[in-house]
């Protein structure tokens, strides 16, 4: 077991940023914390890295309790904080040397460690530049290099791709996947694609609580609820109420509403029962009513839908 969290709670004042969460992360796993901004992802990470102290609950990193063994835990963790803070007036090599020395990399191995990180993170061309002069993508690489300079067993990355352009995001993700092969890796994000692209396992966090836990595929299966169908008919002589009633009478249909209506067409939003496929029946029904079918499309529940379902319904309930 690489990381074990038991009943972790953190209050800021009277507000619980993290509320009684427990989970375990196995060695070698790539886990993504997914959640809207302010869900408690960063707070959880800050507690794992010993930057913050939990209000209650325990965290174990490689079976070491973080409060009692703060220094030993820190040695095992490589951390890239949110916004990737860096000393902008230092040059890349000096900074990596400073990071290595603080991580107590033996003096004789510092140069080797720096060279390795420069190679892995592709910093060769910019190693003599000041960090402040680098583009955001390179800064992110410096942040990653700094986090890994002491070859930690656990790597914690808080929003590693935020603020990057699409090309840089792909490069950083590739780098993360490459690194994740040997390490336990925890990353947080509010971008869904990121989780699907990089993680073995997803923890969806909302309002300080874990609302879902599993592989991206298993979550999709588990939350595969009702199917949604978008249906467009030509606006003509047939009255829309008749069509509406007609659709409702089709087998496996739960709810129908008009999504959009313009001069030429009407767009219906249909919710079908779990695991059903009503497309054929719908087609026949529309034809039997002498209306003209312009479009018919059924959507699978995506991770995005699950995310939205889990993170918005909850907050509505509380409000």
């Amino acid at each position, binding site marked *: 077991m690489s990381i074990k969290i038991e009943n972790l709670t953190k209050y800021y004042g009277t507000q619980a940023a993290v509320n009684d969460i427990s989970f375990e992360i196995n060695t070698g796993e790539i886990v993504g914390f997914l959640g809207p901004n302010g869900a408690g992802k960063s707070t959880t990470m800050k507690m794992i890295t010993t930057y913050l*102290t939990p209000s209650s609950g325990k965290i174990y990193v490689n079976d070491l309790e973080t409060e009692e063994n703060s220094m030993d835990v820190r040695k095992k963790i490589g951390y890239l904080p949110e916004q990737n803070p860096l000393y902008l007036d230092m040059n890349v090599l000096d900074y990596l040397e400073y990071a290595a020395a603080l991580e107590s990399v033996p003096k004789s191995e510092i140069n080797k460690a720096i060279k390795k990180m420069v190679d892995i993170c592709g910093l060769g061309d910019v190693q003599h530049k000041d960090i402040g002069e680098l583009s955001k993508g390179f800064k992110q690489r410096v942040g990653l290099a700094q986090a890994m300079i002491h070859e930690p067993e656990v790597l914690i990355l808080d929003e590693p791709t935020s603020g990057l352009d699409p090309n840089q995001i792909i490069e950083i993700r590739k780098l993360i996947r490459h690194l994740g092969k040997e390490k336990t890796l925890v990353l947080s994000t509010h971008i869904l694609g990121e989780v699907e692209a990089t993680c073995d396992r997803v923890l969806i966090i909302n309002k300080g609580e874990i609302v879902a836990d599993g592989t991206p595929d298993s979550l999709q299966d588990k939350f595969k609820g009702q199917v949604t169908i978008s249906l467009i008919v030509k606006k003509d002589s047939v009255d829309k109420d008749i069509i509406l009633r007609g659709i409702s009478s089709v087998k496996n249909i739960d709810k129908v509403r008009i999504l959009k209506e313009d001069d030429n067409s009407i767009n219906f939003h249909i919710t079908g029962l779990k695991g059903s496929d009503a497309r054929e029946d719908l087609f026949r029904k529309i034809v039997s009513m002498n209306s003209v079918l312009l479009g018919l499309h059924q959507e699978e529940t995506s991770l995005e839908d699950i995310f939205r379902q889990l993170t918005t319904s909850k907050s509505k309930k509380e409000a």
Partner: protein
Amino acid sequence: MKNILTIFRKELKSYFNSPVAYIVLVVFLVITGWFFTSSLFLSGVVTMRNVFDIIPFIFLFFIPAISMRTLSEEKKSGTIELLLTKPVSDLDIVLGKFLAALALTCIALAFTLIYVISLTFIGKIDTGAIIGSYIGLIFMSGIYISIGIFASSLTENQVVAFIISFLIVFALFLLNKVLMFLPAGIASILEYISIDYHFSNIARGVIDSRDLIYYLSGITIFVLLTKTSLEKRRWS
């Protein structure tokens, strides 16, 4: 110890990587230079007295200026989070930064040795008082710096840090000057707290353990306050 040294080296280097060190050194030398040459050439007296009298005043501004960024800048840029999650104790961080600022001050003071050396060619100098004054100034800057770093740990705004540390330092400095308005009982307590009082003792060339204890305990108090202020984040 190794960590203190690592932080010390990085901090000292960053003073000289930015214009801060150079501006502060130049201003310091211009002002002390004026007081040195004016006593030498205008009054024709071979003495360091005027220089040693003015340095505590310059330090009132000089030291808050070099210590204001130590922690507030890290707080503002977020690098404090990196630093505090490395296997380095909070005390090591504070001490590393303290020693770097002290080293910069000592470099500034070392330049004034040129005045002393040139005086030895012209006339007889009071060696004891001069050595005492340098020791006194180093301890005095130590206490100023510990106050400056403490102020810097309170805020992420460097200007606010400067003003807070200036106010504390100025108050401690001024105590000695307002004693005459106070009743004797309170006056003797305030006199003991005053930075300037202890400095004038040492500057006479008398190095008394009471004065050194005053300075060392002052430094310790503010270093520990800074450490506590850094730890506060974990509980807030």
